């Protein structure tokens, strides 16, 4: 049956007739279709979440099957929130989050702006630019340690060549001052295309007629950019920031492969710290509380942000 037949039929049919159905009722089908998904989500998401919350009030440890599990009330939460080291990892995460977002927004937007000039072959180059973000962060992160090696790494060699310094005079991963930037650079390399794509969609959603009207009003290009381009792309940009923010708050694979949290604890993001507590020290109850705190933080921050985003969209 071809679509045109349906189209014709559709035109002739009042929507109410759709309610007349045979076989299973709509209600039944709806439930059959939705139930497996809900069921799986309950089993793999909600149930574990409840379990985590429960464990967070105990001193349970996976590697002590014989030890008695005690209810410790809010002790775990108190210990975590008063632990200076954990606040330090939060700061590290914040530094990582802010700088990656700033850099990715600046570079990503500029790239999108340039690509939107619609030069020949822009589709091809866009696809090429997008490659890094589609790849496995762990595999790529691991390889970046090779690029960062002072003696043999390509990165050091190129930077050394461009700045006329000795490539082995600095170590991106080993130096306390450089390591936080080493992870920012790789994340920016990987995820700038993401921001770029979203910005590009934003730029392409602006109707040309607006610019034409502005051009008639003799508005300068600069003014057009500030009064038309930027405000219209802003909701898109904010969405990109939301996605990057959530992703980088969760960041684990890339950084764990790159620096493992070192040197010292300079690049120990919260996720890495949590992994140490949960799967190296096996303090299950304690790390459950930790996980709950992180979860609440992401949700809290994200929902505040989404509210702001919706306000911008409404404007």
């Amino acid at each position, binding site marked *: 049956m071809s679509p045109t037949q349906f189209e*014709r039929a*559709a035109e002739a049919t009042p929507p109410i007739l759709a309610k007349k159905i045979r076989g299973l009722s709509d209600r039944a089908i709806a439930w059959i279709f939705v139930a497996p998904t809900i069921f*799986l989500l309950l089993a793999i998401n909600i149930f574990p979440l409840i379990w985590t919350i429960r464990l967070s009030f105990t001193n349970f440890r996976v590697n002590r099957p014989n030890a008695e599990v005690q209810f410790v009330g809010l002790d775990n939460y108190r210990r975590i929130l008063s632990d200076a080291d954990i606040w330090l990892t939060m700061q590290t995460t914040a530094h990582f989050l802010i700088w990656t977002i700033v850099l990715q927004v600046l570079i990503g937007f500029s790239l999108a702006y340039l690509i939107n000039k619609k030069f020949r072959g822009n*589709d091809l180059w866009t696809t090429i630019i997008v490659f890094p973000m589609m790849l496995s962060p762990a595999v790529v992160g691991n390889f970046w340690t090779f690029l960062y090696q002072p003696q043999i790494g390509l990165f050091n060699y190129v930077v050394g060549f461009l700045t006329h310094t000795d490539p082995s005079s600095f170590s991106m991963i080993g130096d306390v001052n450089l390591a936080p930037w080493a992870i920012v650079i790789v994340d920016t390399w990987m995820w700038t295309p993401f921001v770029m794509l979203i910005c590009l969609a934003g730029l392409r959603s602006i109707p040309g007629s607006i610019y034409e009207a502005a051009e008639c009003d003799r508005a300068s290009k600069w003014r057009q950019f500030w009064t038309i381009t930027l405000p219209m792309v802003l909701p898109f940009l904010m969405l990109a920031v939301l996605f990057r923010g959530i992703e980088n708050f*969760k960041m684990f694979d890339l950084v764990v492969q790159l620096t493992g949290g070192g040197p010292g604890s300079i690049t120990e993001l919260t996720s890495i710290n949590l992994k140490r507590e949960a799967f190296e020290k096996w303090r299950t109850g304690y790390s459950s509380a930790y996980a709950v705190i992180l979860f609440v933080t992401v949700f809290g921050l994200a929902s505040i942000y989404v509210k702001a985003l919706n306000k911008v969209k409404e404007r």
Partner: protein
Amino acid sequence: MSSYSITEPSKRQKWAAGSFVIFYAVVTLMPLLWIIATGFKSPSDAIAYPPKVVFQPTLEGYVNLFTTRTRATPEMLVQAGEPKTWYDRIVRQYDMVIAGPSRYGERFLNSVIIGFGSTFFAIVLGTAAAYAFSRFRVPLKDDLLFFILSTRMMPPIAVAIPIFLMFRQLGLNDTHAGMILLYTAINLSLSVWLIHGFINEIPIEYEEAALIDGYTRFQAFYKVVLPQATTGIASTAIFCLIFAWNEYALAALLTSGTAQTAPPFIPTIIGTGGQDWPAVAAGATIFLLPVMIFTILLRKHLLRGITFGAVRK
């Protein structure tokens, strides 16, 4: 300035923009090209200083990736006789013999099984749920949709703690079934959201017409909606596959030998003593290439996929 449109950028602008973008693309591509090139270097070329751009290509990295080798005593070498194959010969340069295959093949296969398995279930369940959300009045629909999305906001390590305990009780740690189940659940959020968007775009009138023609609701879904949503579902499937393919944290924590996928394995490839960079690079190349190809296939739907359908192009 072109004459037909005042907003069309000038030739010079286009040229300048083009060269900037191409420059960026070349720079951004360098690490990837370096991975591919390193895979064809000999171990000493790979760690040469200054880095070698021109080198004698060799398949040593690939041989090392797929084999385990033992250092042989002189007597053993004599006993083993002349190397018989080209890969024997490569290994023999270092007074070593091939002791057997490496685990890379298995890990790659695991990635394929778990990736495709979880994608299949995520798409089947996701399509059904998305259709229901799109066409029926499901109670608490918006809340449910948001809730499904929220599952992706949790840090994977936080998710791993209870899953680890649960899988331990059920004997699902380090099994294919466990990983497929887990990735299916995680990918469901993506598939429901994306397919929901695709189905919403199909005019409801088509189904109504089909229903009038005497189709049951299920037939209408099967024979009318599905064919129309094929492209959307296919691109969603590729996104699910890429996620499962690239996932590291959960695989590293919940699998060890039987069901381990390639991402936790590749960084642990080491040679005699140090990390064997050509072998790592070879493993990475084989692993990354499919995703690059998928990216090219997906380029039209890329934006939609990475933003959970929030941005359409």
